């Protein structure tokens, strides 16, 4: 009952992350003429996932394993009783369904950050629906649903691979297929850094549900996951802020918010496995590598990952997955032993997991996006629409009408 109480709460917290936290974090970074469209991608990513998940997504990810590749029991959750319990944590299975739904929802919405300000909204809706089934559900199955990566021993406490690498790669692939925005390279000021910071704070809040909730129990490991989540986010913000200050002599709020998120991403796979000291290192490195992911990599390669879905989630997610292999401390959680505690293999296993995910996600996302694009008569809005802004063209609305 205590476990159920906590996971009910955690599910609500994770839910808030997408249509509120991420929507504001991303929305505030878009230009004001695309603010609502950017928010709409997060909101509807969650909405589409919520429906698709109960229809088929859950059973593909967590149904009875078929050859390590996919799961299946039945559509529409039929057969699950109110009294059924999930083995871990003995929480109601229906609660596990809801908890996992919120992860699917945020993952697809995270990817939207790479492709804002130029994608047709209808394409997004179709893409999101298919992607949950064809990309998210299998990867979740491999790592968490008893699939082959879990058998291999990949450690992913709360979704470094399943959520962040997955979303980062998907975003990057779609950004490359969709091409750059017409104004790429020009000054495109964020509509509201205020909203972005508020979004980041709400993400941080929700992330306690994400990471400490993934224990599915209200116990010491959940408490430890909670604390390291907080610590990693904080030190990553400090790290990003410091390195940016050294580079540009300003303490940008966008940098602080981005650092927070980078730290949260990196600690995600490690949350239930590492101790506080490790979290300080994981977070600090996350702030730095993501800073270069955004400031170096993207500039060098000139793709238009508009809000750095890959630069932050992909890059810090990869670092976090590897770091889990290094720092996993069996005194924290006997299920994970990393390099530092004598298990050198774990790092290689983690890397395998990363590579498998990258390869599969990249290919499958490309196919899904192509299909979505064909089904909706082309994925990109017209040049005129892009210049007018998608709020007006796609939604017929304005973000703010202040006197």
């Amino acid at each position: 009952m205590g476990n159920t109480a906590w996971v009910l709460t955690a599910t609500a917290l994770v839910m808030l992350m997408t249509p509120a936290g991420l929507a504001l974090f991303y929305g505030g970074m878009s230009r004001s003429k695309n603010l609502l469209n950017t928010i709409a991608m997060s909101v509807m990513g969650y909405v589409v996932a919520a429906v698709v998940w109960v229809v088929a997504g859950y059973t593909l990810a967590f149904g009875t394993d078929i050859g390590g590749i996919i799961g299946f029991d039945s559509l529409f959750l039929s057969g699950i009783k109110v009294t059924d319990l999930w083995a871990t944590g003995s929480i109601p299975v229906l609660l596990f369904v809801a908890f996992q739904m919120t992860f699917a929802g945020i993952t697809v919405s995270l990817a939207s950050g790479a492709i804002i300000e130029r994608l047709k909204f209808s394409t997004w809706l179709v893409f999101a629906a298919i992607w949950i089934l064809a990309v998210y559900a299998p990867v979740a199955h491999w790592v968490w649903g008893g699939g082959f990566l879990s058998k291999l021993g990949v450690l992913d406490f709360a979704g470094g691979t399943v959520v962040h690498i997955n979303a980062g790669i998907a975003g990057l692939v779609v950004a490359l297929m969709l091409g750059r925005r017409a104004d790429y390279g020009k000054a495109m000021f964020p509509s509201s850094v205020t909203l972005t910071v508020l979004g980041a704070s709400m993400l941080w809040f929700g992330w306690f549900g994400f990471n400490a909730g993934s224990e599915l129990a209200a116990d010491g490991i959940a408490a430890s996951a909670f604390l390291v989540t907080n610590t990693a986010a904080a030190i990553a913000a400090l790290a990003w802020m410091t390195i940016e200050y050294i580079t540009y002599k300003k303490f940008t709020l966008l940098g602080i918010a981005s650092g927070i998120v980078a730290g949260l991403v990196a600690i995600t796979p490690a949350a239930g496995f590492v101790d506080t000291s490790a979290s300080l290192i994981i977070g600090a490195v996350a702030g730095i590598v993501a800073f270069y992911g955004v400031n170096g990599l993207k500039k060098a390669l000139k793709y238009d990952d508009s809000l750095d879905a890959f630069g932050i989630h992909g890059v810090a997610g990869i670092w976090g997955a590897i770091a889990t292999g290094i720092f996993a401390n069996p005194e924290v959680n006997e299920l994970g032993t990393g390099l530092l505690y004598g298990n050198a293999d774990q790092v290689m296993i983690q890397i395998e997991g990363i590579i498998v995910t990258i390869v599969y996600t990249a290919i499958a996302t490309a196919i899904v996006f192509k299909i979505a694009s064909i089904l909706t008569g082309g994925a990109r809005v017209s040049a005129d629409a892009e210049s007018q802004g998608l709020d007006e063209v796609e939604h017929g609305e304005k973000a703010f009408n202040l006197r």
Partner: protein
Amino acid sequence: MKKIESIIKPFKLEDVKDALAELDITGMTVSEVKGYGRQQGHSELYRGAEYVVDFLPKIKIEVVVVDELVDKVIDVIVKSARTGKIGDGKIFVSNVEKSVRIRTGELDNEAV
């Protein structure tokens, strides 16, 4: 009548308004504008890129006065708006052929 249009620094608005009020100028119209001039704009950061923002916030004050007052008004504005630093702004004077007060229909000098 003449229209005296002044572009000034935003934080000088109160001072200029007070100075004009002392001259018994009872009407003026103010708008927020952006100025490009010798004063250099600042730069803003966005995700690791630094963009120079050429346009600086300025305030435009428009006041229409009878011809006799023009020099006095200019004088007062110059005094109250000056900081001595670059970017203090400009004053432009042009001719107004007709004025109407909407409420009463009064015309010209009666209407400014």
